[in-house]
């Protein structure tokens, strides 16, 4: 089995509103998979189904070799997740957040302590180690949240708009972290608004109104639309006829 994620006609309806409309795709192991779409296109809903936070209405999906209906708890052991909402406790210190999340993923106490030291060291956050999360800059917080999401070395990590509101320099550092993680064998499933970030992905899918409108490598996508940047691809797909101006 070579796929980290397979989705087959995965659908989620809220009443008469279909948020995700029978999407099918595969994500290979170790791949950086970009999940693009306008606001409200259904990206977050799709991601929540894959992470076991939301039960699909129809369709099938396997994540890390487990079924999202029958084995959500098995999946949760093997994935990391960084949500769109800020996911750290602002009234806990940096080190306390690391230890807490390490703890609830069942890492041994000693290992948690070592990992916390290693993380703080690697991130260059020693000056913040003992300050409350609420007091550190957003960029640092996002890097910390990402590090915590992969603390238990998951097979797949889901990132929901991880770089929102972050300055370009920090964004670049963030993507370096993503590459490093992917190189160590972790599959990365990432949603983003920034089209330049889409270029960094191995493959991207673009969602429009609950459906996957395109799925390919960035290069192939640009070529098939005959445009220079992913931004133009995006505008063509989401606003038919809008990319010409």
């Amino acid at each position, binding site marked *: 089995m070579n796929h980290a994620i397979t989705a087959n006609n995965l659908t989620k309806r809220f009443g008469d509103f279909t948020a995700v409309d029978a999407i099918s795709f595969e994500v290979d192991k170790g791949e950086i998979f970009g999940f693009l779409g306008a606001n409200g296109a259904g990206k977050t809903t799709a991601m*929540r189904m894959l*992470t*076991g*936070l*939301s*039960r699909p209405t129809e369709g099938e999906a396997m994540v890390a070799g487990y079924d999202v209906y029958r084995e*959500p*708890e098995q999946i*949760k*052991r093997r*994935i990391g*997740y960084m*949500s769109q*909402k*800020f*996911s*750290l*406790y*602002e*009234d*806990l210190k940096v080190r*306390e957040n690391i*230890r*807490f*999340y*390490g*703890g*609830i*993923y*069942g890492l041994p106490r000693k290992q948690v302590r070592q990992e916390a030291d290693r993380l703080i060291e690697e991130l260059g956050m020693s000056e913040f180690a003992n300050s*409350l999360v609420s007091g550190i800059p957003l960029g640092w917080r996002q890097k910390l949240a990402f590090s915590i999401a992969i603390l238990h070395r998951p097979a797949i990590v*889901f990132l929901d708009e991880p770089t929102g509101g972050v300055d370009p320099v920090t964004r670049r550092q963030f993507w370096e972290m993503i590459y490093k993680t992917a190189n160590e064998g972790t599959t990365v499933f990432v949603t983003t608004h920034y089209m330049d970030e889409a270029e960094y992905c191995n493959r991207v899918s673009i969602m429009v109104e609950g459906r996957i409108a395109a799925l390919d490598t960035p290069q192939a996508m640009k070529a098939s639309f005959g445009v220079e940047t992913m931004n133009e691809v995006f505008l063509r797909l989401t606003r038919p006829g809008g990319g010409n101006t």
Partner: protein
Amino acid sequence: MKTVPYIVQKEFRQIFRHRVMLPLIFLMPVIQLLVLAFAADYEVDNVKLHIVDLDHSQASRQLVGQFEASEHFILTGASASGKIASNEIQQGEADLYLEIPPDFQRQLLRDGRSQLQVAVDAINGVKAGLSSAYANAIIRDFNAAFRQNYGGGIAQPAALQIETANWFNPEQNYQTFMVPGILVILVTLVGMFLAGMNIVKEKEIGTIEQINVSPIRKHEFIIGKLLPFWIIALVELAIGLVVGKLVFHIPFVGSLWLIFGFAGLYLLVVLGFGLLISTVTETQQQAMFIAWFFLIIFILMSGLFTPIESMPPWAQDITRFNPVAYFVDVMRLVLLKGSDVWDIRQHIAVMGGYALAVNGLAVLNYRKVG
């Protein structure tokens, strides 16, 4: 179960990170206990008395003197007409007035009977009933003494002597009765609200998602959330009991182990209930309101302020489902009367069942999947 200590540790850190939390949780209840124990007193004293003496005889002066001497009344005014007196009551300057008619003494001696008028501000029915009873008692005593002095020694009929004894609280100290009950309320309030607003707070700020994608087991999560408040509430109970002992001299007749044992069980119910509320609500405001709604019914129907026996049968049936009523009862039974485990076995059984049901529901209701 490995993950439980991490949650407990995190909760404690978060609770005490707010500098005001510590005094709010531990100091305020003690202050409340001190204030409330003195305030919660149904005894009626210092009834404001207004006198309308139209007789000005020796007898009327004696009667007024006896009223003045009573610990229940304080004389706040006198006037020459019932109308003025009524007005005083309307203004709130008097609670009760006594009108002694002209010729009160003469009629009593000549006709063998005479009449007095008492008017009471009856908006507070309980207070009115008690103060008119006090007034009647004073008048009855005065009547008996008057008969003795002027009646020329008419033989009294043989009487039955009724001895009254009040066990467990011979001085009829009201605080002894109220303090254990107030303690229950304070511990319940703090526990229920802290627990009730807890999970929902994580929902509000969004961190619950991060926990829901982790492989944590539902019961581990609920236990981890419950334990910190359980410990806090028990510590609070201990502080309250020390204050009760030192300040109010509450007798600890029964076993303290039994009190804490039962309190532990009771708190599982209260906190489980709080967490249950937390799992079915979306905002802390909502959680608080639902908690209030149930608490206020629980407290009013707990037998703390008004005896359960006074309620109509249907209401008494409802109190059988009221955990607060059980704990108030157990506190009084064990602390004041020295009841043992066997005496309160029924309470224990009901509370145990309740704890299982409520916490089971909380675990079932906490959904990791939307």
